[in-house]
Structure formats: C-alpha cells, structure tokens
C-alpha cells in the first residue's frame, strides 16, 4: 500500500440501509485500492450482500455517500454499472441457454464491439470452447461459477464485486477460481469478494470484516490478527479435542474449538487464559502457544457481536 496518495477504486463512507425496522448496514465505510483483492467477511445476515448491492447500484443507500471508480455510487449508478462486474450469490445466468448464448447475451447488453471475438476468447480462457453449445444449467457447480465469472468480466470491468462466489464449490474448483481472480487483479482489476472460507480470506490482499451491519476490522490478514490482540494455545494429546466444552466455560477463554484431535483455546487476557488451561497442563496433554489463525480471530469477532438474524 502507498499511504501517500492511494488510488481508491472503492471509497464509500457511512453507508446505511434499513429494511423495515431492521438496520442491515450501519455506517459502513470501505476503501479498496485499485488493483487489489479485498476479502469481505462476516457472519450470515451481517449485511455483506446488501453492501455489495449498494456498491453496484442495485440498492439505494438510505444515507452515506461515496465513489466507485471515481463515480458517485448514487447519482452516477449507471456509469458504475457499466464499469462493474457483479456476480450474485446464486447462479443467475440462464440455465436454458447454452454457455455461448449466455456470453453473447451479456455482450449485447453491454453493447460490446467484436462480440464474436470476445465470446470466443472468454470460452477459450474458460476452457469451455468445446462445450460452448452445452446448456448452462447442465454444468457442475464449479463450472457454473467460472462461467458466471467469465460473464461478469466479459465487458472488461474495472471493478468486480463477487458475492460468495465459491459457496458449495469443491476445493480444486475453488483454487482454479481464485487463480483466475488473481490473474484478473494482476491485469488491474479491483475485486471485492465476500466469503466464509478462511483460506480464501488469506488469499486476499486485505480483509474487511463486517458484523451486525458494522465494519469491525480492516487491514491485511496479519494486521487483523495483530489488531485482535488474541492469544492462542494449541493443545494436543489423546482426547484433547474433547476439552472444548469444559474450557469454553472457563473465565478468560473466549473461544475453544477442536481442530481434529487438537484444540485451540483463545482469549485476549493472557493471565486468565493461562489460568484456564492450567488444570489441563498435565499428561497426556501438551500445550504450546501458537499465532492465532484468521479463523480464531473471526470466531472471536463473531462471538463479540450479536448475530443479526435475518
């Protein structure tokens, strides 16, 4: 990052959105530098989708302001739309059109020139050139997502908004998908991607964590972990994973979660945490302090804020 004069692709302040009496997005401020991948995290119902929809003009914020790609997100929503690719949470291409037809439709809607060439190129890039005549509905989950990504980027947007693009997709397909996202970012595209997967969060340049409609953590993965002030102990040995229930009730323990046969116990008060695990500092258990993972941090963050059940 260049703190001197950052070139913000997304620069929005104090966004608010309510549905009825539910305050879904509460004073959210997000800045993402051009060409970077920002992971957008938070529990279900925390306002991630609503925020993404406000950024691409699908929803009008109740208050707040800002710019995307230098255009006002409210007054110049049309200009933002033209330069933004948006991929919805649910597969939302036409299942009864073929792969090629879906791409051609998008190409026409955006009034693209050299349509045939662009569609062919996208199919080539996807590796779907030989299956161009296949109905989109018959693709597997991973391929569907890659097709949706190809469609969302067909008009060469400068900003890409992805709403949980890899939910329900197998690990190999997820990796391929993320390789493509990184390739796109390398070409200068800015990406804001919401996800629940920690490995994906770690693949982002930076992270924004939203909970209960509020942005509560921002920065690189390392910054977020450091800012959490979390201390984590790793316990192993036969039956260590079964200590979770007892430990989570102990004072000073904020989270205790089993990882296979091992357990991670985290808290922000070192003295209290050590006191809590003291009774178990005996055979057959072995304890060691480890750097907290992003997941430890997020579970702690989630535990602190009330889940906003939709």
């Amino acid at each position, binding site marked *: 990052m260049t703190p001197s004069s950052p070139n913000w692709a997304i620069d929005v302040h104090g966004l608010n959105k309510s549905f009825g009496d539910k305050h879904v997005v509460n004073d959210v401020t997000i800045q993402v530098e051009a060409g970077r991948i920002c992971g957008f995290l938070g529990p279900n119902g925390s306002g991630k989708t609503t925020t993404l*929809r406000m950024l691409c003009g699908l929803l009008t914020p109740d208050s707040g302001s800002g710019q995307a790609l230098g255009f006002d997100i409210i007054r110049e929503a049309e200009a933002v739309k033209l330069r933004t690719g948006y991929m919805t949470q649910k*597969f*939302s291409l036409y299942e009864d059109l073929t792969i090629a037809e879906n791409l051609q439709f998008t190409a026409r809607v955006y009034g693209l020139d050299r349509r045939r060439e662009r569609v062919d190129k996208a199919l080539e890039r996807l590796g779907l050139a030989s299956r161009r005549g296949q109905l989109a509905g018959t693709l597997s989950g991973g391929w569907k997502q890659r097709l949706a990504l190809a469609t969302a980027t067909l008009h060469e947007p400068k900003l890409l908004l992805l709403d949980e693009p890899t939910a329900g997709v197998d690990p190999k397909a997820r990796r391929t998908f993320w390789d493509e996202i990184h390739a796109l970012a390398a070409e200068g595209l800015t990406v804001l991607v919401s996800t629940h997967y920690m490995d994906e969060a770690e693949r982002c340049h930076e992270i924004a964590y939203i909970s209960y409609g509020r942005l509560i953590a921002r920065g690189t993965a390392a910054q977020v972990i450091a800012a959490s002030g979390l201390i984590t102990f790793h316990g192993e040995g036969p039956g260590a994973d079964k200590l979770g229930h007892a430990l989570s009730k102990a004072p000073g323990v904020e989270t205790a979660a089993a990882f296979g046969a091992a357990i991670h116990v985290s808290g922000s008060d070192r003295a209290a945490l050590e006191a809590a695990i003291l009774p178990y500092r005996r055979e057959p258990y072995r304890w060691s302090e480890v750097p907290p993972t992003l997941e430890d941090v997020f579970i702690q963050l989630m535990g602190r804020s009330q889940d906003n059940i939709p």
Partner: protein
Amino acid sequence: MIGLSLNRVLAVLIKEFKQLTRDRVTYAMMLAIPVVQLTLFGYAINSDPRHLPTAVLAQEDSRYARSLVSALKNSDYFDFVAQARSPAELDEMIRRGEVQFAVTIPGDFSRRVARGDQAQLLVEADATDPSATSGAVAALAALPDQALAHDLTGALAMRGQAVKPFEVIVHRRYNPEAITAYNIVPGLLGIILSLTLVMMTALSVTRETERGTMETLLATPLEPLEVMAGKLAPYVMVGLVQTAIILAMAATLFHVPMSGGWLGLSAGIGLFITGSLALGFLISTVARSQLQAMQMSFFYILPSILLSGFMFPFRGMPAWAQWIGEAIPVTHFLRVVRGSLLKGQGIGDQWRELAALGAFVCVVTALAMARYRRTLD
C-alpha cells in the same frame, strides 16, 4: 403391503396446509374466485336480455304509430333511445351498434291498416349475437294481435280478430341464419389472444425473479423500457401468428363472413395485442411467484370471458356489470372484430372502441413502467 403410516401422511398434509396459508395471494384467490364466479353467473349474466336499445323511424305520425311504439315498449324488450329521420340514419345507427333494433313504421301504415291492405312493420335486428335478439324477436309474434287492440273499433275491430291488422317483417341483419359460430369464432380471437399473451408475459418477469436472473439483469445497464420491449416483442409475433391462424380457420372452416373493415380490424388487433402484453407485464411486476402470476391472469381472463359479451349478451347484463365490462379490453376488441367481419364497419364506426383500447394500452404501459424496479429496493 408396504407399511403406510398415517403419521407420515399427516406430516405432509400439515406442511402443505401451512405453505398454502402462507401464500396470501393464493389464499385470497381461492376464496375470491368462487365469490366472483357466483356473482357473475348469478347476477350479471342473463341470456334473455330485455330493454334493448331501439331506434324508430316513423314515416307517419299517427295514432297507430304511437300505439305500436308503446306496445313494443310494454313488451319490456325494446327501449326507444333514438328517433331516426331517414332510412340512412337508421341504418347507420344499427351498423355502428348504437342500437340493437331498428323499427320502421312505413308512411302508409295507417292507411293500409284501415283498408286491411297488408300493413307491414319492419323490425331490423342486429343479429351479430343471435342470442341477444332471439327473445325479443320471439316477443314480436304477439304484437299484431295486441298492439292496436284499443285503436281498432267497430268494423275494424271485427276484422282485427279474423285476420291480423298488420304483419311484422323481421330482418336479422349481419347474420340472417342466426349462426352462432359467426358470433363465437370472431369472439374467440379475443379470448385466445388474451389467454396466451397475458399468461405468457405474466410469467416473464416473475420467472427472472424466481430464478435469480433478475439480479444480474438489474446490474447491467439495461433500461426498464428496453427490458419490456425486448421481452414483449417475441410475443407480438406469437399474437400475430395466432390471429392469422384463427382468421384463416374462421373463413375456411366456419365460413364467417369477411365483410371488410380491415383498417379498423388491423388497428384493433395491434392495440389489443399490445394491451394484453402490457397487462401481462404489469401482472408480472406485481406477482411474487409464477404461481401468483398464473392466478392473477386467470382472475383477469374470467370476466373477459363472462362480461365482455363473448359468451353472454352484453346488453343483458345489469348496469354495474356493463361498467366492469367496459373496462375490459376484450369487450372493445370483440366489438371491433365482430363489427369488421360481420358488419363491415369502417374505422369511423369504430373509433370509440379503438380509443378505448388505446387508452387501456397507455394506462397499463405507464403502470407497468412505474412498477418495474430498476433496483432491488
């Protein structure tokens, strides 16, 4: 036998019932449809219409003429709404459909009655819908015996009992043989177009919303009018093909007269197809699921069939039902189609119906545009 469990049936039953009550529109429709059906069938529909608008051309002003008019009135079938001054004016009134009957009392009527010289009363009926006129025509049979009963005295009265003082000549105009198909087949054009076009387009936006493609569509630079025009254009083709098929079959299989009025007919078809599509689009912006869209379309189709004059004579309905009927585009479209094919009406005779269709198109399109959301708010 495989073990059937009442409890498991109950589980499905309870779930089904809960889902049913949760869909408020479906629930409302299930209750509203019988109420609407019963009201329409029970109160609005009358296959023996009375008080039909009638024009009279009295070529003599005599006691007999006045007695005739009041006898016709007393039969309850005829309401005299206009006095024509010439045969041409009378003809125009019946061609335009302003009146159902045109009565001509010839200039020598009294003289011939007095002389017992085959006096005639001419009654022309607009028989495009045979069922609308049959009751009234039947009632005319009793007219010669009663109409002049009080006027004929002395020798004339004696004669009146032996031979009838005059005869009634009935002309069933536009459909002299009272062939029902002449009325039903052109009417079907309106019903079939409504059925397919309204229902098909009612699903168009709802389908996108249900499948989630709407969100993608909204995130593109597409304007509402572009979406509407693009979505509806294919159905305009469907409508035109259907029209061609129906008209071709009407002419070849049913020998429905094709009397002309092509300009008005074309304008009517164009407006009606556009209006039906716009209405379908409007429904699809209101309905939240494809099921609801289907039900709303059905709710529109029902009065289109019952209150438009398609199945039952329009003039047989009470005033309130006629008001509802006037608000339904099928009513006006039927008049244009029947008027063109059977009566050879010119565009000058049809401008009212065409204007009504045009107004419907404008209002519904404006509503649909206003309802179409360019955001998900």
